[in-house]
């Protein structure tokens, strides 16, 4: 029985604040394959293309036939827990702050023995477990063994909560609550147990259906916030920056246009001003303070979510300037991710396909409902992944892009 997480008490400012530390993050290049898969929520191991051996730890060649044709392939992770220990004394400052820390040794059904972080719900040895890959606080892929069947309060395991960004009992800022997507995200967060959601709004005169009802929810606090205004961002960061555990940047400007379809750059500039510079303004004001609070108790600062677009991977000419602004934001988000990783705050990029909103009216289905997008974002937080591609269109684009970016460029430019 896993004790459920309790709502944290108000922070006692007299007591010592735990500073952000990271678990050991150095990896060989070969081992980063585990991280790359875990960032997408997958557990992959090296499989030899010549002889089929599944191997771990990662190597440069197959240890069976010495072939260099190694492929990272998704694994079920089923195996037997053959030994366990609980570390009470660690040489590393991160773990020293967090002991006792459970570890296991699992013989995977596919062959290798793996050392894993051990979920508290796993039955004593010998028992069947499922091994999965997570990103730890350093942003590197690690293995964790889970019970085969869901157990109550599964996500509340303290070790797992170090790997995830679960919104439960956390305070969240959603930068734009006046869009359908923003509202769906707010409701999704509240359903997931968020303690408080600050809902940003930029244009007070604009009356949006549903906004008044949202504002009436007890967990919601409205916050005037205009990402095109540096002073507004700075003021709001000064007011709530030290309390935000999760920041979800849902603000975006979207005009359906290419280059020749409109003269002048005003619309494109507005897109860049929110989609790119808005992110930069937010990152400069909220980033450092969030990073400094990344280990501050059970409900520390933990994640930063960017609403990008699948068009960030490859320009979609009929939404060409929007695509460009999202590509700029993607590049900046990688910089932000590198900087936030130093404190252990995860940067999650969301690459949706076309959302079923006013700016995609002319596009054919399937289109992503705001509710589905919100659900994908909440799940990404719960799973602690780095990149998600919600919706059928995004999935298809991703598959084509992974196979050949150049081919995709030609395919979408007809």
């Amino acid at each position: 029985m896993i004790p459920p997480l309790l709502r944290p008490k108000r922070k006692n400012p007299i007591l010592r604040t735990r500073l952000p530390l990271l678990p050991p993050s150095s990896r060989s290049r070969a081992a980063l394959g585990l991280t790359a898969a875990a960032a997408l929520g997958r557990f992959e191991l090296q499989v030899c293309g010549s002889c089929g051996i599944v191997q771990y730890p990662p190597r440069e060649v197959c240890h069976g036939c010495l072939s260099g044709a190694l492929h990272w392939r998704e694994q079920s992770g089923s195996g037997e827990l053959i030994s366990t220990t609980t570390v009470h004394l660690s040489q590393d400052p991160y773990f020293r702050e967090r002991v006792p820390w459970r570890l296991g040794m699992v013989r995977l059904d596919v062959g290798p023995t793996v050392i894993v972080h051990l979920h508290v719900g796993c039955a004593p040895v010998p028992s069947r477990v499922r091994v999965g890959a997570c990103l730890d606080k350093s942003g590197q892929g690690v293995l964790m063994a889970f019970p085969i069947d869901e157990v109550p309060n599964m996500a509340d395991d303290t070790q797992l909560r170090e790997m995830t960004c679960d919104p439960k009992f956390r305070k969240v800022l959603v930068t734009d609550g006046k869009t359908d997507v923003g509202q769906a995200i707010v409701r999704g967060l509240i359903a997931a147990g968020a303690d408080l959601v600050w809902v940003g709004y930029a244009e007070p005169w604009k009356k949006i259906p549903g906004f008044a009802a949202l504002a009436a929810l007890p967990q919601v606090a409205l916050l005037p916030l205009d990402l095109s205004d540096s002073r507004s961002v700075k003021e709001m960061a000064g007011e709530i920056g030290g309390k935000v555990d999760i920041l979800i940047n849902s603000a975006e400007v979207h005009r359906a246009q290419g280059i020749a379809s409109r003269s002048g750059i005003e619309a494109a500039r507005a897109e860049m001003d929110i989609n790119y510079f808005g992110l930069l303004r937010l990152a400069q004001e909220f980033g450092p303070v969030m990073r400094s609070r990344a280990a501050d108790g059970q409900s520390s600062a933990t994640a930063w979510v960017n609403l990008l677009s699948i068009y960030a991977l490859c320009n979609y000419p009929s939404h060409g300037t929007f695509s460009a602004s999202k590509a700029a934001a993607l590049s900046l988000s990688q910089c932000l991710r590198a900087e936030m990783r130093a404190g252990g705050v995860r940067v999650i990029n969301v690459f949706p396909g076309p959302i079923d909103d006013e700016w995609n009216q002319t596009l054919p289905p399937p289109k992503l409902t705001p509710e589905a997008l919100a659900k994908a974002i909440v799940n990404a937080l719960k799973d602690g992944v780095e990149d998600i591609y919600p919706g059928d269109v995004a999935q298809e684009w991703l598959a084509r892009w992974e196979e050949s970016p150049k081919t995709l460029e030609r395919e979408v430019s007809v």
Partner: protein
Amino acid sequence: MGAVSEPRLTTSGNSRDYRDVVLVAPITVPYVRYSIRSAHWFVAHALARLLKESNLNKADIDGLSLGSFTLAPDTAIGLTQHLGITVRWLDHVPLGGACGIVALRRALRAVQAGDAEVVACIGADTNHVDSFRQSLGSFSVFARDAVFPYGSGGPNASFAFLTSYYMRTFGATREDFGKICVAQRDNALGYPHAMFKKRLTLEEYLGARLIADPIRLFDCVMPCAGAEAFLVMTRQRAEALGLPYAIVRATCERHNAFPDDPIQIRGGWVLDRDHLYSAAGLEPADIDFVETYDDYPVMSMIQIEDLGFCEKGEGPAFIRRHSLTTDGTFPINTSGGQLSAGQAGCAAGFLGLVESIRQLTDRNLARRVPEARFGIAVGFGMITYDRGLCSGAAILSRAAV
């Protein structure tokens, strides 16, 4: 799906014996918990002690075998200039707990073949305050990728897995391991260089601070700085110099044995013990003392089994029916082993060899094993991921038996 094919195991069945090559001058550079000196300092002091013990000059040493983890960026070659020695045979053996046995094997052959006349075999390491923690993350690529990020418990966590598995599988108890640790501490009380100088009771052992369950404080060695060394030369040379010597009856070495075992419960000794004893012309029952590689007591139990003193899984019963002190029915780690003497890096791979030579040449510092004629020193080490990869052993005897 493919599987790793069973390796063809070669035995050393045709290898030559070590007639006419002997071991002399067992020395120890006393251990300290922390040192501000570099490993070079400990190597130099080991060499100086070897020369003093053997009445030789630096110019007489024409071979050097060095085991060390903390020389970086130097290796053995840098030490020749550092120490001002000119050698015609040089070996660098950073194999931790196996470096003594491996160095010994190579040096014996070098002297036997005439490639060197006198080889100084030295295991030495320093230990600064933060050395141990730093060594954990840089020990191996596998450790960095797949062990250190998991709790950073170091070898304690790795051996906790093995110990826990062994206890569950073979019914060993904490008391069984405690008996080994308590007996070794008793042996250490007679050894002036031991880091631990206070008697250990079984109650203290059982009640000690939890480190990584089931490992508690007194299951763990204390990392420290120090050196162990001996010389390899021809019997003729040793006799001419009037140096007491020990003879090597047989040795073995094996790396990455049993890679398909899900978790380590045995080492390469299992593959090599038959030849080891037949080459030595001895049976396990003939052995008068055993210097196990005791980085954790479970490894002593595994080595006792794998070297044929009892069957696999009978280690606990074997321990229960024997007394393990120098005056006991099965003396082990007669100078206290690493558990009581301390683990001075690669010197730990030499500790049992050096103590064996002392026991068999009557140069004892620790208490004497009565009428000891044959001893076995064991090497084990290098957990690069989930198991110790190296295993080795050497059976030594008195000059005249």
